[in-house]
């Protein structure tokens, strides 16, 4: 195994070659905000929260997919990046209908936590109040599009881990939304195995267990990592 050494926020980090900047930063105890990335699923680099500055590169690079290189100088929290991250979170809040007070995930929501992390005490961009729907057709789970941030974790976990590919992204641009089957009610899609992995990885209250009320959704994305690890390495952590 070859090792790369690099500097992240003035800290020296040594890590296995082929690792990503995000892994290197986490190894060094440096927190970079993320939303779409989830260990165990393929990365999509879509939320742009983990963009970092790398000396010698004019462009900002997404830490979740950028491989480490020997001698790299990385800055993860410059004022420019902090401003960008706050704007990303504002764009997400204003794009949907995120009413934390009445959300199943209130207090356990990655989006809500990110708002705190980036210091968003209000949105400088106007709220859009889109007209979105709630799908309660499934016997066990619900999908509230108002709270969806289109991170596509559900799409990926259903395709890559469960193998059912119930979900996909439909339409495009601002009209994008998660669809089940031929854009049908979730409950009408036979392919669903009711495994609940999509609910487990959802960072917000968009996917939830029926019957959960405000603040009652507690997800544990870590369970997915354990599952994927067990599958690949035949090692369990009971």
């Amino acid at each position: 195994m070859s090792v790369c050494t690099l500097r992240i926020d003035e800290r020296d980090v040594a890590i296995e070659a082929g690792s990503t900047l995000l892994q290197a930063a986490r190894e060094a105890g440096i927190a970079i905000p993320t939303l779409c990335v989830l260990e165990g699923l393929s990365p999509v680099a879509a939320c742009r929260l983990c963009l970092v500055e790398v000396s010698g590169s004019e462009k900002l690079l997404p830490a979740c997919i950028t491989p480490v290189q020997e001698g790299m100088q990385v800055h993860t929290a410059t004022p420019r990046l902090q401003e960008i991250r706050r704007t990303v979170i504002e764009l997400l809040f204003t794009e949907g209908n995120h009413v934390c007070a009445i959300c199943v995930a209130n207090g356990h929501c990655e989006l809500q936590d990110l708002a705190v992390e980036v210091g968003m005490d209000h949105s400088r961009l106007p709220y859009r109040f889109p007209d979105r729907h709630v799908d309660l057709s499934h016997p066990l789970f619900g999908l509230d599009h108002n709270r969806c941030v289109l991170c596509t974790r559900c799409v990926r976990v259903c395709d890559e881990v469960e193998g059912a590919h119930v979900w996909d992204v439909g339409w495009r641009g601002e009209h994008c939304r998660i669809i089940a089957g031929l854009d049908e009610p979730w409950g009408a899609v036979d392919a669903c195995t009711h495994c609940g992995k999509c609910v487990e990885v959802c960072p917000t209250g968009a996917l939830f267990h029926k019957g959960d009320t405000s603040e009652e959704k507690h997800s544990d994305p870590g369970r997915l990592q354990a599952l994927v690890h067990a599958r690949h390495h035949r090692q369990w952590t009971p």
Partner: protein
Amino acid sequence: MDPMTPRKRLATVWLAGCSGCHMSFLDLDEWLIELADLAEIVYSPIASDTKTFPEGVDICLVEGGVANTDNLALIQRVRANSRVLVSFGDCAITANIPGMRNMLHGADPVLRRAYLELADGSGQRPHAPGIVPELLDRVLPVHEVVPVDLYLPGCPPSAHRIRTALEPLLRGDWPELSGPELIRFG
């Protein structure tokens, strides 16, 4: 309290919100007594009988979004007469639950929905010009209507949060609010 320091003129305003933020304010309990030494409450739905928003207010906490013509007139008067305007709670900052009617896009569909479609038989649109204020087409966060100086999120903001923001303001300092204890929505 230093007798040389004049008491701050404090106001609280209730727009489109559930009054929960004001209830949380009352949860300040015994600190309210200290507060009374530091500030004179010159306008408030819970602590003053004044009907007209006064001039020369130092600090004003505004609960609720701007939902109707009365709210609109009041917030403009508040802004014109307050040195520090604090958006007090999620409704003031995001329109929050009152803002959910914005998904219906317009005052008319909201009234139709509430008074006709959901009525049991004898629904009728309220119409009392000059008595009941007209709804605006959208419930707006306060800062989309007038400039806001400080944001105090929460539904409601806890008493601790309110005190953390108010104490420095009353001293003439500026509070630094960050972290889950102080700026988490919901």
